[in-house]
């Protein structure tokens, strides 16, 4: 393409025209009707038009890109002024009048054009001096002004540089295009006004006035746009209508004009929006298009989802890295950029893409192909978890508007109305999760669990708050969350959200424990066993505590020890005061049963203040803290079957709060402490167990009334007993293992110590 230098006015004009013709918002104008009409409107012989098309290279490309279009327009202007069509003349002809197009149809544009023209002619060509054709023969009112060649074509509207204003500033663009009237009120605050001869534009004034309402309305949503220009331009005084025409050509915008080129995001987006506005006259769309540029519209998302299906039919499944690599390599982006996109979009760093991650990656690829620079961090709207991470607040630099035009999906400015709601939902989620600040890539980190603790608190306190957002949450994120939940327990982010989602789905009461369970970092192998046993015992707990949500058992199976302690406490505190109440049958036995486990130890510890007690107490205090101080230790103890669990879980709960080595140590310590205690208490335990067991049969005998209830309680107690016994044996086994491990570690340490003193 021959390089083309355009004057400011021309730039604006051409840009407007391009927007006008770019009905598909693809930034390249196929030889569709609009373009042809336009060229026809130039009133040039068809062979000239053909020649122009050839010259500008459109025939080569098969369509009119922006540059081709501009060149074509310039050639048209050249032809219209009677000069021979030469490539060299593109740049050499100075003071070329703007190409004239006579269109009989679009009044609005025509009016605009006329307005533009007036303004342009008057203000934009001050220096030109030449009788720029400017006065598009056409507008009746313009005739007054147009001294030269104002072949008034009252019937015809002239498409004049609507575009210029648009190009100049984003704000102007939209309003300008808005069919009919808009520009005037729009920010074309245009200094130009002054130039514009106020005279003779009474008609325009009316037009302006009419459009004023439209535009102001239009403008307002756009003020939200990143461009401050909008707001900066107060509605140009109606009298000075030309104002809108006078795009600040002579003002700074002019300097920006040269900067505008197809790759410029702003222009693209504005043009796109403008065109869309022109065609669709949907102010809403335009307003929404000025939101987060990285938002994915519904069409885009649908397209992404379809593409996802081609690779992975299960929308909740994952796309393996290799498949994703092949897919994205097809986009012909350099590997380095693809690598960067992958880094941004693979949120949980699992080497696979969920639907959300895939959409984000695809979106980034699309944006990159459109000339957007890749952000350093994943934009908020592309966050798959909808959780506001610490660095997610950054909005990508690239311009204010999103360029969706290049997306394979015809992303018309049709931002679905649901998007804003989604976005609203997301910020809500984000706010609620702000303090979670999940650090996604570090599975080992225990801090997330602390965050999850907080989250749990949040959830408990604000579950209602979260609930409303859940329905609003996009399904894909939900799906991805749930998908992520099983496979990637290790990632806090996924877990958190998954946990939360599940909370929404299941029950608010179960939220915190589930979240905790979900959130806990990958425990060492022994833990899951514990959790299973615990979960069953938790079931027992639930059976004792009738009101508990039925959904809990399922997540509890996934639960990790840390999750357990909080639950009993909150259940005690909140939903199941019933726990205590319902544990009618067991209260008597419960204190006896668990006591064998740890509580006696605790009491002993508390009494003796042995160092071993401290961790226990600490843990319990932690548990208490975690559970918002729900229930004293006693209450925990009296929670029955949860005693041993709580202690163990308390130990484990302290784990998540500390770096990985610590929980092990603490567990070791506590278990060490427990072990001797357990051994000591073994006989006591047996005795204790025997006591309740014996007590159980005796009780029904003694009571002898509610046989059913008693038998049920007996059954439950027996189950609890077996579970506890199993748990006990498992714990002891774990203890042994850990001790062995510790010993071996110490041995290693000893061995390596001499070396470390080099």
């Amino acid at each position: 393409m021959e390089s083309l230098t355009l004057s400011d006015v021309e730039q604006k004009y051409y840009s407007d025209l391009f927007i006008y013709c770019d009905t598909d918002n693809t930034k390249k104008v196929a030889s569709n009707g609009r373009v042809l009409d336009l060229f026809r409107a130039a009133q040039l012989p068809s062979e000239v038009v053909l020649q122009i098309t050839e010259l500008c290279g459109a025939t080569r490309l098969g369509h009119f890109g922006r540059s081709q279009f501009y060149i074509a327009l310039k050639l048209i202007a050249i032809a219209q002024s009677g000069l021979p069509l030469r490539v060299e003349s593109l740049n050499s002809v100075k003071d070329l009048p703007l190409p004239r197009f006579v269109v009989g149809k679009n009044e609005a544009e025509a009016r605009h054009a006329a307005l533009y023209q007036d303004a342009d002619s008057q203000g934009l060509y001050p220096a030109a001096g030449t009788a720029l054709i400017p006065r598009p023969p056409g507008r009746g009112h313009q005739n007054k002004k147009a001294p030269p060649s104002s072949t008034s074509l009252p019937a015809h509207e002239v498409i004049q540089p609507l575009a210029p204003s648009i190009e100049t500033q984003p704000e102007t663009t939209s309003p300008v295009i808005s069919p009919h009237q808009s520009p005037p009120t729009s920010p074309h605050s245009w200094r130009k006004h002054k130039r514009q001869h106020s005279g003779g534009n009474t008609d325009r004034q009316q037009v302006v006035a009419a459009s004023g309402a439209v535009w102001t309305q239009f403008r307002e949503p756009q003020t939200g746009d990143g461009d401050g220009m909008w707001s900066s331009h107060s509605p140009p005084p109606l009298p000075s209508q030309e104002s809108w025409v006078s795009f600040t050509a002579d003002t700074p915008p002019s300097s920006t004009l040269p900067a505008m080129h197809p790759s410029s995001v702003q222009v693209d987006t504005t043009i796109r929006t403008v065109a869309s506005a022109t065609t669709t006259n949907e102010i809403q769309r335009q307003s929404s298009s000025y939101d987060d540029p990285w938002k994915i519209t519904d069409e885009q998302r649908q397209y992404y989802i379809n593409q996802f299906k081609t690779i992975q039919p299960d929308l909740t499944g994952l796309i393996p890295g290799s498949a994703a690599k092949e897919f994205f390599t097809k986009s012909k982006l350099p590997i380095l950029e693809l690598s960067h996109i992958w880094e941004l979009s693979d949120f949980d760093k699992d080497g696979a893409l969920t639907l959300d991650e895939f959409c984000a990656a695809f979106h980034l690829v699309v944006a990159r192909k459109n000339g957007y620079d890749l952000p350093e961090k994943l934009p908020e709207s592309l966050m798959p978890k909808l959780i506001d991470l610490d660095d997610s607040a950054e909005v990508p630099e690239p311009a204010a508007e999103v360029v969706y035009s290049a997306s394979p999906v015809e992303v018309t400015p049709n931002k679905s109305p649901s998007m804003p709601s989604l976005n609203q939902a997301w910020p809500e989620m984000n706010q609620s999760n702000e303090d979670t600040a999940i650090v996604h890539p570090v599975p080992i980190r225990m801090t997330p669990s602390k965050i999850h603790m907080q989250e749990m608190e949040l959830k408990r306190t604000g579950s209602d708050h979260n609930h409303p957002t859940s329905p609003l949450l996009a399904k894909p994120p939900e799906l991805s969350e749930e998908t992520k939940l099983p496979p990637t327990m290790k990632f806090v982010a996924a877990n958190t959200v998954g946990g939360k989602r599940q909370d929404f789905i299941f029950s608010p009461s179960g939220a915190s424990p589930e979240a905790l369970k979900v959130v806990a970092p990958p425990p060492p192998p022994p833990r899951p066993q514990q959790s299973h046993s615990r979960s069953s015992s938790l079931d027992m707990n639930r059976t004792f505590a009738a009101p508990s949500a039925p959904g809990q058992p399922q997540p509890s199976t996934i639960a990790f020890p840390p999750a357990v302690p909080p639950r009993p406490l909150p259940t005690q505190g909140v939903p199941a005061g019933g726990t205590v109440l319902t544990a009618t049958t067991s209260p008597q036995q419960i204190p006896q049963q668990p006591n064998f486990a740890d509580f006696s130890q605790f009491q002993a510890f508390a009494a003796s203040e042995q160092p071993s007690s401290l961790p226990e107490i600490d843990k319990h205090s932690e548990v208490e803290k975690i559970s918002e101080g729900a229930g004293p230790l006693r209450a925990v103890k009296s929670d029955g079957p949860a005693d041993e669990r709580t202690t163990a879980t308390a130990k484990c709960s302290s784990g998540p709060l500390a770096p990985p080595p610590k929980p092990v140590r603490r567990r070791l310590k506590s278990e060490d402490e427990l072990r001797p205690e357990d051994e000591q208490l073994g006989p006591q335990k047996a005795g204790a167990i025997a006591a309740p067991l014996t007590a159980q049969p005796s009780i029904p005998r003694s009571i002898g009334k509610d046989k059913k209830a008693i038998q049920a309680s007996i059954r439950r107690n027996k189950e609890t007993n077996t579970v506890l016994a199993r748990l006990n044996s498992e714990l002891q086994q774990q203890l042994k293992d850990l001790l062995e491990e510790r010993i071996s570690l110490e041995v290693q340490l000893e061995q390596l110590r001499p070396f470390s003193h080099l």
Partner: protein
Amino acid sequence: MAVCIAVIAKENYPLYIRSVPSQNELKFHYTVHTSLDVVEEKVSAVGKSIGDQRELYLGLLYPTEDYKVYGYVTNSKVKFVIVVDSSNTSLRDNEIRSMFRKLHNSFTDVMCNPFYNPGDPIQSKAFNGIVSGMMVQTG
């Protein structure tokens, strides 16, 4: 104060090496290269069956008057070497370990990227960020 951080592949060629630019980078490259011998020695010596992180962390490899070199080897024989300036208050062992852990994590993330071919120099921005953080924070 980490003045130099290097990631060396199994075949003992560098995947990533970055130094505090103010100093003579060549000197650090040489140091890292020579430290590989010590790494090999340690790896072969510490041939325990228990493959826990303790084994991965090799500790102080080689102290000189100006700096100390710490090593860390992954299970896939990828070596991380951190050169620390001795003039700074000597970093505790735990801090070095945490640095290695962070390095290992971000290295894993780089590996997870399907667009990364093992054996290529590491060009990940995230990895660079982590390394910069470690080099800046410690010095």
